[in-house]
């Protein structure tokens, strides 16, 4: 279990590293995905239009803290948590999982905000 996770993290880190070194990560593409609408749904449905502000869960209205790393330094600390929410939220928003490239693009954009 532990080694499985470590391996997974290593693979992910490796892929991100390869993409970076190949110059393929693109924050602008991440931004486009963030705002892209699919059947009226987008990442902003819950996280709000401005990542520097708090969002609100579209269904439960629970407050969600800002996604911009500069405003909320507690973001993106735990790989397991990041993967869990990408899995849930991409499925909810786009009706499918996001691939490694898309996740890297989005994370890079959010982290630069």
């Amino acid at each position, binding site marked *: *279990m532990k080694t499985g996770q470590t391996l997974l993290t290593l693979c992910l880190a490796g892929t991100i590293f390869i993409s970076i070194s190949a110059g393929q990560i693109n924050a602008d593409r991440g931004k486009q995905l963030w705002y892209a609408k699919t059947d009226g749904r987008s990442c902003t449905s819950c996280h709000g239009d401005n990542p520097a502000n708090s969002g609100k*869960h579209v*269904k*439960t*209205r*629970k407050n969600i803290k800002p996604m911009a790393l500069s405003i909320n330094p507690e973001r993106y600390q735990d790989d397991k948590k990041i993967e869990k929410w990408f*899995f*849930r939220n991409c*499925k*909810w928003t786009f009706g499918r999982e996001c691939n490694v490239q898309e996740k890297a693009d989005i994370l890079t954009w959010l982290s630069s905000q």
Partner: protein
Amino acid sequence: MSLNRSMVAGSILMAGILAFSLYGIGQIWASSKNQTDPLYVEECGSCHLAYPAQLLPPRSWQIIMSQLDDHFDENAELDTESRQAIEAYLAEANQSTNGSYRKLRRNLGKQTPLRITELPYFIHEHDEIPSRLIKANDKVGSLSQCNACHKSAEQGNFDEDNIFIPGFGRWDD
């Protein structure tokens, strides 16, 4: 001989102190487990408040926990380790808070409700609140958002002297 005896007495005393402090730690641990299990709050409190365990019968939690991939039209899936830890927490917390809000479980018969807001006693307690204060109230939205009105909901307190409806105020009936 007397040295021996005082050593025996000393060991008994030490054992007593040890047992007592272990008991104390156990108590603190048990009470902290009651409402604020950090894993439960992290995993079940990110989309809505972490609903206190005593609000549903154990069989309801079992079903909820067994179908997290289809959770009220959301995906709340967990890895096996976290899911089992939360199942154990809910079962235990449910037992230790068995007396609180027992009324909620009245008239359930054989039903296994998956929502607190569907319990007959819950409906009875909330049917006088006009919908403009719930659905049409941007700060509430639905009755599932207990903490919008019950100010100590996260601590498992739903007493009537702790209710404040946004845009309306304190509720006295």
